[in-house]
């Protein structure tokens, strides 16, 4: 049972990995687990937005199911 968490840009740099397999749970649970194992994620996390299976999620209680994909997106900086 696991969800796949994809990290981009500053989030990837903070975590030191592009993808982590994490046990399913709420968005908050999953991010707490990532932060517990990668303390550097704490500074980037509050600035990030999140996609669960491609859909933006603003609710920390939303569930990240087994087999789901969670994308962790730092603030955009295009142009």
């Amino acid at each position, binding site marked *: 049972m696991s969800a796949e968490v994809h990290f*981009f*840009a*500053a989030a990837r*740099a903070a975590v030191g990995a592009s993808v982590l397999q994490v046990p399913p749970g709420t968005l908050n649970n999953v991010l707490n687990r990532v932060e517990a194992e990668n303390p550097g994620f704490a*500074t*980037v996390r509050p*600035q990030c937005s999140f*996609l669960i299976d*491609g859909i933006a999620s603003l609710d920390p209680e939303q569930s990240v199911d087994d087999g789901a994909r969670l*994308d962790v*997106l*730092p*603030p*955009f*900086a*295009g*142009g």
Partner: protein
Amino acid sequence: MLGEGICVNNDDMNDDRGVIRLAEITERVIETTFLEALVFDARAGAIVSFSGNVRDHDHGRSVRTLSYEGHPSAQAVLTEIADEIEARFDVVRLAVSHRIGPIPMGEAALVAVVATVHRGEAFAACEELVNTVKERLPVWKHQIFTDGTEEWVNCA
């Protein structure tokens, strides 16, 4: 000059009369001239272009290497943004391209070109297109400075 064989990642190109001539994420050099040619239309009296170029300095520090990373959804989001600008403004033709990967100093990261009948609309639509790309396009800028330090822009 513009053949049928131009390959772009935009379904609207299948319509020869489509307003959106180009909306693409690319790893190649963006030629403003090419985008300006794409939006050329005898009905359009005004063309406004924006080119956002990679600078050799940022916050007073000298930049050695700059690159952009794009989220897999970047192409879809850019197409969506172009569609919104078309819906909101009286645009005759539009082309927009964002480059990802390493970009040498002085080359363009973002080029947006809008052709309209009247000039006020061209300025407004082009500026809003650029602002919306800056706000919503999921891409990230990484800078390595000449002093060896590096940063992901907009990330404290």
